[in-house]
């Protein structure tokens, strides 16, 4: 157990909370809210859930994941050039690419929600969710560290 295991722990835990949280909201909270709550109440609850989750993501999950990810990459000696190498480098590059795509989808989701484009907002929310699961797939495909 070294300080690096702590950093790895933070990276994995925040990822689990972030993806798990999205899944919980989409698969548990949303369907129940639709079934059990009145329209105006539902809107308020869902907005609040979204706001709170967004706050956690922006203030805690993402900063921790990004900083711990960069730290581990530097520690492992990952360079920009090595991201182009087949194998570890490209898997990591693909994971980063998918992360960026998920962030774009999440941003579009927030943007569309603000403009009342409900269908597009929901499409982007689900796309972001599926993409985050894809990130985990790529994380497990990284050679053992």
């Amino acid at each position, binding site marked *: 157990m070294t300080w690096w295991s702590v950093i790895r722990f933070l990276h994995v835990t925040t990822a689990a909370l972030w993806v798990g949280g999205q899944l919980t909201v989409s698969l548990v909270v949303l369907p129940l809210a639709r079934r059990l709550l009145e329209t105006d109440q539902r809107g308020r609850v869902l907005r609040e859930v979204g706001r709170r989750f967004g706050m956690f993501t922006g203030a805690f999950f993402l900063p921790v994941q990004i900083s711990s990810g960069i730290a581990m990459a530097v520690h492992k000696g990952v360079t920009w050039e090595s991201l182009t190498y087949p194998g570890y480098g490209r898997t990591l590059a693909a994971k980063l690419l*998918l992360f960026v795509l998920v962030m774009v989808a999440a941003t579009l989701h927030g943007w569309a929600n603000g403009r009342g484009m409900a269908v597009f907002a929901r499409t982007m929310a689900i796309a972001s969710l599926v993409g985050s699961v894809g990130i985990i797939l790529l994380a497990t495909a990284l050679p053992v560290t």
Partner: protein
Amino acid sequence: MTSVDVRIGAPGPRPTPPTQRRSRASWHALANAVVLAWLALAGVAALTHVRLPAPEWLAIHVFLLGAVTNAIVTWTEHFAIALLRHSEPAPWVRPVRLAALNTGVLSVLYGGSYGPVHLGVAGAVIVVGVVGWHVGILAAWTRRALGGRFAHVVAWYICAGVALVAGGTLGGLMLAGWPPGIGTTRLEAAHIHINLLGWVGLAVLGTLFTFWPTVLRTQVADGSDMIARRSLRLAAPGLAVTVGGFLAGARWVAVAGLLLYAAAAALALVPFLRTARRRRPHTPAAWMLAAGTVWFIVAVLTDLSVVATRAADQVADDLEPLVPFILVGFVGQTLLGALTFLLPVVLGGGPAALKRNAALLERGWIIRLIMVNIAVPLVVLPVPARVSQVAWALVLAALGAFVLLAAVTVFRARGPRVSPSIGGVVVGALATAVAVAVALSGGPGVTTQGGAGVTTQVGTGVQTVEVTLVGMRISPATIKASPGTRLVLRVTNRDAQQHDLRLATGQQTPMLGPGQTATLEVPPLTGPVDGWCTVPGHRAAGMTMRIEVAGAVAGSEGGTGSGEEPGSAPMDHMDHAASGPLNLAASMSPGWRPYDATLRPAPGATEHKVEIRAVQKEIEVAPGVRQRMWTFGGTVPGPVLRGKVGDVFTITLINDDTMGHGIDFHAGSLAPDVPMRTIQPGERLTYRFRAERAGAWLYHCSTMPMLQHIANGMYGAVIIDPPGLAKVDREYVLVQGELYLGEPGSTGQVRKMHDGRPDAWMFNGTAAGYDHAPLTARPGERVRVWVVAAGPSSGTAFHIVGAQFDTVYKEGAYLLRPGDDGGSQVLDLAAAQGGFVETVFPEPGHYPFVDHDMRHGEAGAHGIFEVTR
């Protein structure tokens, strides 16, 4: 603008029942969705062309057969109905035609690139049949037509369709390899011309007579109907003469036909110009059509100059680089321009929807137009690779943007509603699929890099061992340790090139440059552990080590001891599968081009500057057999350099590969230390030498293990003319090399190299390649053949069956000159030697040339001189 009716030029629109209008709109949504899907596929094919077999052939045919042919069939029918004022066909006709046509296209594409060939031929038959049927319907309509001011345009469509029937038939024949014995180059030249100038060209020219004024929203120019009739009377025979000329191998007949066609095109474009002068292009569609038409004119003129200056058998080769230019500049822009105008019109939905759809389709059109038209000349001109890559990126970006916009337009107008959940899952899954594709790219056999690395933790009972990587060896090769010991390896690379060390337990150092050091922590030992360098080929060359547990029986394999390099085990099995006798009589894949054996005269300049890139490339090395080769410049052999004694060669070697390479020119004499050094991926070096002595010299990769680098294709020839070298009628160069199938650098492949068991021998990189694309000569002509034996292990006994050499020049000296009493039968060369022979073929016939060591000659070192009057 209130409404744009598609009954182009038809005075007084005839009322259409609303139900018919609606079904027409959904038909167009479907037909054009198919066109858009093919366009998207063409973009993907162009983007990924390095990974597919017969890459360019596939991308070109996805675009022309998939997108363009579908579009022409759909729209010529649509215009014919409008112009002839004919009723819509029976409801089953269009879906059946669409399904049949696309079945045929898919069969051609799949059969043509992956086989079986019969599938491709069957596809060609279907495509030809469908278009023939379509033409038949148009002809029947014309005969029954009650007039209509613009009925003559349909005659252009009929001629275009007949051209495709002929051109598709030629394509099917080429796929089938029939008729046997004659080179496919004439067929190919005819095929390219009749399809591009006939099927596409005539359909476009005919349409422009009425479509261009419609797009410009002005009247059809007076007299354009007469011009349409007259110009078709010139264009159709012109095209027929051109194709006949190509098939007969009569260059000047083809030129005459092309001149006739060009004159007809010029005449047909007179109303186009008149209209444009009256009403300047002011819509996106008009600009795209105008740009497409300009590139059409440039293409016809360029084609004319190519055909006029090349021998008929060479035209196809020299036209090939022009094809992407024609596809992008003329065909692509015209198609996209027409769709930009037509899609909103046929999708209907009332004036508001039309306006909205048009606005969406035209989004960013100025940027797209500029991007494409800047790129068009760059894809054909000899610009640096980076520039042409940027040009292609521009083209594909513009294409992608259009396909996206058009897909949204069609979808919004006619598409089914998709729930956000499904839409979201599809988008997310696609994004993940793209990322996984990126992650998996690079293929097997390329090793992982940057795995578990430096660990600073030091526990108790740790033993540190210095490991050195030098001279393709790991030292010490064996480490013995007691069970449970925690070993730390301090790995230092003392070699001049990159190495790393990977253990079967999964630990791996980063890729180490010369002088770099990394430490590796070995998990507590329970059994023997193997280690090796993961640079391709190094493990097979002997860069291995083993950690043994003291007390354990040597050779007993623990769970981790037998760990194979990822990907190498299945490859070894493939080696065995691939080592069976090759079928050298099988036909080469469609789209295969022989290495041009013609040797051009030395350039006049005394200084030669050449840029060579070391790059891996998949090459068809024997009929139907593709092999990833290590190459200089993407070909085996690399580029042939030629000069005179005293010339200075400045070569820039750029390493675009993932492993180190170097270069060694036997034609120069210098200290190897610096110029022949190994350079790493992304680096470049300059190699300057003065050719002080004449000869046929080898050049090859100078990086160890050279056996593998040469055997995998990294060699080429430098020809330095002896002073006073007589002029001859034809000069060819043949570089003979060995072929080792299997994953380059894999244990199985390298074993064959060490044992001297090649799978085949090749002249210029293809076993028996010149059996399928014979070298040509005429009786009485003096032919000089330069031969270089690249090895790496075997030489050659070069012989031409049925011919005698009256001149032999070997390793810098004449052994025989014309006028001597004796003759020669074989030029014998050891590995890396070179020379030339001269002969005069007495009469027409087929003269095989072989390595008369029959083990080599019957295993690929074989080709044919086709001597015709």
